[in-house]
C-alpha cells in the first residue's frame, strides 16, 4: 500500500529539510519513494508544500485531493488551506503557531480566530500542539520541523526504525543533538 504525506507551511520553516530527512530514511529502510517540492516564488514568505509518497512501488509523485494519509501543517492557517487534501479518516498534525501573511499584516485580510476549534470539530484524528514552543524549550526554535517530523513518524507507526542514524547522516555534527532531542520529543507526543 502506498502512503501519502503532505507537508504544508510557510517558507523558512524547514519543511524541505524535514521531508528530505523522511525521504532519506524511507529509502534506507527499503521503500520506493517519490518526493516532490515547490521552488521559486513560493519561498519568499509564500505558502510552501512538499509531498512524500512511499510504498512498494510508487508512480505519481503527486497527492490528489482527499488522498493524503497524513497532513502535517507547520502553521495552523495552512492546515485549513490544505485540509481538503486529507483522506477521510487520515491523520492531521498541526503546529499551533501563527505566521501572518502580508495582507494580514497590513490589515487587508483577517487572520481567523477559531482555526483550532474548527479543525478539531471537523477532523477525527487530530494532533495539535505548539511545536515551535517545544523546539524553543529544547533550545532552538529552528528544530520545530523535526519535532513535527517526530510526530509524523509516530502517526505512521515507523518509530522502531533508526531515525537517529538518519538524522546523523543528514545534519552537521553540531546540530545533531538538538535535532535528535526534537525528534524524540515529537515521537512522544
Amino acid at each position, binding site marked *: 500500500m502506498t502512503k501519502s504525506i503532505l507537508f504544508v507551511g*510557510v*517558507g523558512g520553516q524547514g519543511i524541505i529539510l524535514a521531508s528530505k530527512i523522511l*525521504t*532519506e530514511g524511507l*529509502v534506507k529502510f527499503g521503500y*520506493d*519513494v*517519490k*518526493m*516532490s*517540492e*515547490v*521552488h*521559486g*516564488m*513560493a*519561498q*519568499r*514568505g*509564500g*505558502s510552501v508544500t512538499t509531498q512524500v509518497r512511499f510504498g512498494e512501488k*510508487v*508512480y*505519481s*509523485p*503527486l497527492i*490528489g*485531493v*482527499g*488522498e493524503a494519509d497524513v497532513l502535517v501543517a507547520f502553521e495552523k*492557517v*495552512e492546515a*485549513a*488551506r490544505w*485540509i*481538503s487534501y*486529507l483522506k*477521510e479518516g487520515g491523520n492531521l498534525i498541526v503546529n499551533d503557531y501563527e505566521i*501572518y*501573511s*502580508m*495582507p*494580514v*499584516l*497590513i*490589515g*487587508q*485580510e*483577517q*487572520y*481567523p480566530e*477559531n*482555526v483550532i476549534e*474548527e*479543525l478539531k470539530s*471537523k*477532523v477525527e484524528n487530530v494532533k495539535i500542539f505548539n511545536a515551535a514552543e517545544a523546539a524553543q524549550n529544547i533550545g532552538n*526554535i529552528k528544530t520545530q520541523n523535526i519535532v513535527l517530523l517526530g510526530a509524523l513518524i509516530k502517526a505512521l507507526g515507523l518509530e522502531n526504525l533508526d531515525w537517529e542514524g538518519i538524522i546523523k547522516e543528514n545534519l552537521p555534527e553540531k546540530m545533531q543533538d538538538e535535532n535528535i532531542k526534537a525528534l524524540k520529543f515529537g515521537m512522544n507526543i
Partner: protein
Amino acid sequence: MKRIMSGNEAIARGAYEAGCTVAAAYPGTPSTEILENTALYKEIYSEWSPNEKVAVEVACGASIAGARSICAMKHVGLNVAADPMFTMAYEGVNGGLIIITADDPGMHSSQNEQDNRYYAPHAKVAMVEPSDSQECKDFVKYAFEISEKFDTVVLFRITTRIAHSKSIVELKERCEVGVKEYKKDIEKYIMIPAHSRVKHYEVEERLLRLQEYSNNCPLNRIEWGDKRIGIITSGISYQYAKEVFGENASYLKIGMSYPLPDKMIKKFAKAVDKVYIIEENDPYLETYVKSLGIECIGKEFIPICGELNPDIIRRALLPVKEKNIYRVDIKVPSRPPVLCPGCPHRGLFFAISRYKDIIATSDIGCYTLGMMPPLNVADAMICMGASISAGVGFKKAAEKAGRDSKVFGIIGDSTFFHSGITGLIDAVYNNAPIVTVILDNRITGMTGHQDNPGTGRTLMGEEAPIIDIEKIVKAVGIKDENIRVVDPYNLEETQRAVDDAYKAVEPFVIITKQPCTLIKEVQKRRFNMYCKVEDERCKKCKACLRIGCPAITFKNGKIAIERSMCNGCTLCMQVCKFDAIEKVGE
C-alpha cells in the same frame, strides 16, 4: 549504489557518467539545479552564462570542438536561445550536444505555460522525454548517443514535476569518452546560404532515419496489460496514467518524442480497443496520432491548461466516485510571496510609491514582488530584459498621445547582464527619456543565489573579474549628471535620486547598491542588527506598515518587530515620524 535524486540532480549525474565535459546555463526555475550539480563534478567545465542564447552557443562551440556538452534552461529560456538552436540543427554536432528545456506546467514560477515539445519539429531536432529521475540519468546517455550517431542536436524535455521530484537512482561509474578530434569542415560548420541549402536536404533525410530509430529504440516501449484500453503517453503523464490505470490498461510509453514512432503507434492502436492520449498541456501526441488516421480520445477530456495530476485523469476518464472531502468554515487569508524582511529593493520601491503617476515597467526577478500591496509598484512585466525596452515603447506611445507619463524601467543586476544592456542602448540611441533603475543586489536572487558577472565568482567557485554596471551605463552613453548610485537602505538619498529622475528630461539611470539580505555572509554580518519599537512613543499611526516589511506586525493593537526576521535595515525607523523605532546592535 542507490541514491534518492531529483530529476535535475539525475540529469547532472547522467552527464557526468556519459563523459560530458562542458555545461552552460542561465539559472531559471525549474532548471537551475542541473548546472549547480554538474559544477560538483570537476570533470565538467560548468558556467553560468549571461543568458540562454550564450549558454547554447557555448555548448555549440564545445560540441564543434569535440566535447560532449549540455546546456540547460527553463522553457522561456529556449525562446531566447532558439536562434542558435535552429541553425545548429543544420550544422549537426561533433561531440554530442543536448539542449535541456525545463517546462513549467501549472506555472509554479513562470510567466507563461508554453509546451516546448513543439520546438523539436520546428527546429527539426531529435527530442527525448524522461518520466522519472532514473530515466533522467539514463536518457542523457541515450541522448548523447543519438546526437553523435545521427549528427543532430537533441532537445531534452522535462517538466517541473520531473525536475523537482525525487526518486531512486542507481549510480554508475563515469565513462571517459574524451574530447573528439576536430577537423575543419566549413561546409558543415559555416552556414552561408550555399551550405545551408545543401544541409536542409540532409536534415530532412536525417529525420527519416531518426524516425526509423524511434520505431525501434528502447526509449519507446509497449507495456501490455488489459487491451481494452490503450494509453499513449510520455513524461510525467506516464506516471500519472500508471497510478490511475495500473494493470487495467496497456501503455505505449514514449521516451523519444520526436520524431514519433509511427509504426509502433499504428501497431499499438490496432491491438487495443480504445486509444487514450494522456499528456499535459498541448495535444502534441494527439495531433500526431490523429494525423496517422487513428481515432483517439484526449483533449476533449484532459485539460490543456494547468498541471496534470492523477486526480484529473481519474475524473476525466473513469466513472467518478465522489469522496468525502474535509471542509472547514474558515476564511483562509491569502499568503502571496513578498519581498523579504530587510530586502534592499524595498527602499527604492517605497520612494517610487510616493509618486502615484509613475509608470513602472518591471522585469523577471524578486523585485517583481514590488507590485504587491502595500507598495503596488509595477504596471507591466513581460520577460527577461523587457523592462527597459518596453519602457521605451511605452514612453514613445505616450508621447505620441501627448501624455506626460514618467516611465521607470526596473531591472535587477543579473537580468541587466542577461538582456537589459541592449534595452538601455535602445533608450540612449533613440533618446527615450525614461528612468532605468538597476537594482544591484550582487546576486541572482529569485532562483536561489546563483553567481553572475557582477558577483566576482564563477559557478565553479573561482574568483572572477567583477563587471562594473556603472561603467557599462556610462559606456552606453548615459551622461554623468544623469546617473545616481545610491544605498537603498538610505531612504533620503534614495528619495532624492527618484525625485531627480522624475524631473529628468533625458535618459536617466539609478543604480541601487546593497547586497541581498539572504546572502550568507550578509546574514552573518547583520546578525546582531535589528530594530525595535518603543511602545510609549508609538502613536500607532501605522506609517511603518506602509513599507510592507513582513517583520513588522500589528497584533493586539500594538506595533511590534519580529526580532528573528529583522535585519536592522532601518527603513521602518526612517519612516516613523515619532522616533518610536530604535536601532539595536551594530
